[in-house]
């Protein structure tokens, strides 16, 4: 459950509040995008640095848009890394052995979903994460990724097919 943040005067207090409130969910997002703990931690740091620099331009309308803004930054940071020459040279096929030991305690079914998500091609993974994990609408997902809503919806359908039976409930109601 998210608590409603108390407005603060100073930028530093705002950054601290963002770290406290959103660092965990952003770290998980970065890990799902990149499939590597160290890269995810670097991306998380880069996300907050960009957020800090862009804080003055951000006009807060409500809590959801604040979180959505940070998630958008994180996804862009991860996307930039995936486009880097290093990442293109390195074989990054995700395997169960890539899971950190701390995740091995989770139920097998849940770990399987995690592996399937990490194996998704980037453009499908992004829409799946924004729509199903972060509960954004198709329009919000499209805005976060700077793509038309129709493209977001196509990628969402394709991503669901690739994930096969892992998605139920919300899919059936859409």
């Amino acid at each position: 459950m998210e608590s409603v943040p108390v407005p603060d005067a100073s930028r530093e207090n705002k950054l601290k509040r963002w770290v406290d409130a959103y660092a965990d969910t952003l770290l998980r997002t970065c890990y799902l995008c990149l499939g590597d703990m160290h890269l995810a931690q670097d991306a998380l740091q880069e996300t907050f640095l960009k957020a800090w620099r862009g804080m003055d331009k951000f006009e807060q309308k409500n809590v959801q848009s604040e979180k959505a803004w940070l998630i958008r930054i994180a996804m862009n940071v991860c996307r930039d890394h995936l486009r880097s020459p290093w990442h293109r040279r390195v074989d990054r096929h995700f395997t169960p052995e890539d899971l950190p030991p701390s995740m091995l305690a989770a139920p097998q079914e849940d770990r399987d979903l995690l592996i399937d998500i990490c194996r998704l091609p980037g453009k499908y993974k992004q829409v799946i994460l924004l729509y199903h994990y972060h509960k954004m609408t198709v329009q919000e997902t499209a805005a976060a990724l700077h793509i038309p809503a129709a493209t977001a919806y196509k990628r969402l359908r394709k991503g669901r097919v690739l994930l096969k039976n892992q998605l139920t409930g919300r899919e059936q109601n859409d």
Partner: protein
Amino acid sequence: MTDPFKEKADSALSSLHLSDWEKHRLFTNTMEEQNMKKKMPAVLIIAIALILALGGVTVAEKINLFTSFSNFDERLIEVSYSSVLNDLEPITVETPELGTSVVTITNAHFDGENLILGYSVENRTFAENFTPTEEEISTMRKVENDAVYGFMNASHAQDELSDAYHRAVRLGLSRGVRGVSISTEFLIFDEQKNELSAPLCYEFNNRDAENVTSHVRVHGPNYDPLPEKFRNADSITVEVPIYKTSFALWNDSTGQYVKWNHELLKTLTLTIPRSETVLPATDFHP
């Protein structure tokens, strides 16, 4: 309406969260990085004179060792970003026994009172069982006291060799081990390029992976102060020779015999500018 996707994903990711300390570090790193980037155009970062014997250097991913070792010394967090040597390439050395080894200096901090360096060594040591001939024993030095000698063991296999040798020494049994290890020194020079007697320092060590070690070396007033001439110096020059250290240890009923040889492979010279952050005193005493 439940969404099993998010439930399952969060279940699998439930161990992925930041502690309060890690969140604090994330916050302070963001502030430190932003402040560092603002000051960079006005600061002479690091002048590097690289003296290579042969060969080139390889590029490897760097870890910020000041961040990694902050559990040993919390002050390292304050300068973890300002001390990072982004432009310093790792040093590759070649030996017949090890093949390719890599020395990476990741961090350097100097503030007039403290000189702290972070470095790692990949493919650190080669070691094997050893039974010397009489002629070989004659070239080794006999240990005249009760000291039990060892080597820089950096893997599980080397731990076993080391433990077996130490047991043999304690029990007066015949056992030997020999090998090579990549080692470094940090030599301090003044503006006239005169080498100074290096103050005593202490070092935190970690084994990151099999045969990969990382270290943070600390010179500070809590142990042995830097020479007075560095109190107000704008920079400090540090020479880093990298050696292949060959070692041979043998114990039998007549005593313990040891032999070391240092072969200089490469030398790196760093000029580290004075940081605006002066680290507070620490209570740590090695």
